[in-house]
């Protein structure tokens, strides 16, 4: 019985005396599939998040605080100019919090698991480490969308503006946009497992997201192929002009999907290579 073939049979009891399967091994009696895995990982992620209430609240407050600083500070410095471009600023900030949440979320999660001594237990699952890490990514993206939605709502209240919120379009474009950030977070998480302390590089990179989100993809064609850039441009159009997913040019969607798959894939590949090297060096569970 392989991991690719989870059974829905009874739990049974492992150990001697249990009928062997095709391998001659006792039947494991697997009763959970990928759905159970995803549910468990998402639930665990939310539980851990709420059980660090100060950290969770501080994250939300700081998210709003920095926007307030930009908005009110910008009004004092640039006056009407900042007010005229506030919708773009809100969308850009929303995407920045999303991408930062995904990037830092998965990177910190991997490093926290190593320090808690639970990373190795996630390696030893019949689902495989890859699916578990992807499930963690889904959990983190889900949580990030929830927290960023709160920040978005507060930003709209603070500025008194309204935006188009075509939910399907925002979710799909937002997800594909932050896939690159998630890939980068996976790569950095892998490096963290390998080298343990990478906070200086990791912190520096998150500021690079601002440049990527504000990349002039309409003017300089190749910037579309950078992480976040195409998604940022499309999210701006969706939320400020009300453009729906199916109203985008097929080329734009293809670039969005292509860059998402590319950067997420590269990030996962880097993570897989880093963890393999960590296993070779015997430092997978070290912290």
């Amino acid at each position, binding site marked *: *019985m392989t991991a690719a073939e989870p059974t829905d049979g009874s739990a049974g009891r492992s*150990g001697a005396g249990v009928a062997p399967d095709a391998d001659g091994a006792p039947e*494991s009696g697997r*009763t959970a599939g990928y759905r159970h895995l995803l549910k*468990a990982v998402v639930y665990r992620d939310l539980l851990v998040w709420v059980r660090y209430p100060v950290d969770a609240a501080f994250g939300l407050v700081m998210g709003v605080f920095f926007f307030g600083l930009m908005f009110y500070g910008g009004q004092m410095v640039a006056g009407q100019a900042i007010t005229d471009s506030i919708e773009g600023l809100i969308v850009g900030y929303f995407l920045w919090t999303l991408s930062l949440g995904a990037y830092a979320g998965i990177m910190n999660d991997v490093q926290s698991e190593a320090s808690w001594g639970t990373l190795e237990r996630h390696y*030893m699952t019949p689902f495989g480490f890859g699916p578990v890490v992807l499930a963690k990514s889904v959990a983190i993206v889900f949580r990030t969308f929830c927290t960023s939605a709160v920040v978005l709502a507060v930003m709209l209240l603070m500025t008194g503006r309204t935006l188009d919120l075509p939910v399907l379009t925002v979710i799909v474009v937002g997800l594909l946009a932050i896939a690159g950030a998630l890939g980068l977070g996976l790569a950095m998480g892998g490096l963290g497992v390998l080298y343990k302390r990478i906070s200086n590089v990791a912190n520096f990179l998150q500021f690079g997201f601002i440049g990527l989100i504000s990349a002039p993809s309409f003017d300089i064609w190749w910037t579309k192929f950078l992480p976040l850039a195409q998604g940022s441009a499309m999210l701006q159009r969706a939320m400020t002009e009300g453009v729906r997913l199916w109203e985008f040019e097929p080329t734009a969607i293809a670039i969005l999907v292509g860059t998402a798959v590319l950067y997420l894939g590269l990030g996962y590949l880097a993570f897989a290579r880093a963890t393999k090297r960590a*296993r070779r*060096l015997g430092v997978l569970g070290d912290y």
Partner: protein
Amino acid sequence: MAGESLQADVSDGSRGVDGSDAATAVDALPADPDEAALYVDGLAKTFGSGDEAVEAVQDVSFAVEPGEVVGLLGPNGAGKTTTIKSVLGLVLPDEGDVRVHGIDIYERPRAAYEHVDAMLEGARNDYWRLTVRENLRYFAAIRGQDPDTLTDRHDELLEQFDLADFADTAVRDLSRGMKQKVSLASVLGGNVSVAFLDEPTLGLDVESSLKLRRELRRLVDERGLTLVVSSHDMEVIEDVCDRVIIMNDGRVIVDDTVESLLAGFETAGYRFTVRGADDAVLDDLRERFDLTGVESLDGRTRFEVAADSATFYRLTDTMERHGLDVDGVETVQPDLAEAFVEMTGGSVGEANPKAASGGGEDR
């Protein structure tokens, strides 16, 4: 003492799995690797390269039968952790074959992990912000078990480990010993057939340790669980294990049943209490025999001597010639800790800085 003769056997060819053959060891590998719950053959791992290379594990081979409990012993830096992590696929060895119920753990890790789990970090093996039950449910789920179908099993484990009253308590609010038990329960709660336990009684008080040892043995006997237990607590090894593998300098130096291992030491020494032994007599005895622990008590003298049966009779003849009155003779029965120290030539927790410097060994 007998330890010397055993150590001599080991060093000049005690059988291990390293190809030598000693009277103290049992066959380590079965003819058919698929018969074993765990089969390890020719495991080798070197950390670093060139002058800084550290051979953490060299040619380690052993097999564990289904339902068997094997203790893995060795001083710090002996290669235990590297062996365990290599067997689990958490460290990639340079050489070696590892199978869990016949499944190659490097070729088909997912299938192998359906049967095996490990408690590697002791108390740091769970989520401290989650409750005890939440931990059990989570780790069961990522092991491919629907936690809803395991509620009874989890209740049973919580009862066995005295955690029932703390099921809804966050792990961080528990004592170290209880955290240790949560880790253990979360491993056993995943329905595995082979489990590795690294220092399962670390941090437990005497009573808790005793109870845990009983529960472990009961789980093994009732459920046919196969265990590999690494511990510095010799009581765990003596109470729970059927067999002991002793490692030193990255190699298996002894692979034998607990009974055989202790039997090798049992009649190896004697403790005499005599009257009338002055310094001259004692000096003469010291010259002829391997006397240790000499002490005087109210006109009596007590000493220990390593002796086989022939030496024993020579000694009693000599004492008779000196006119000593023998008040008592006891057989010295070293425990496993003493046997271990004799065989490894060190203390139970003695560090080996060379091996310890490689790859996070026994950090």
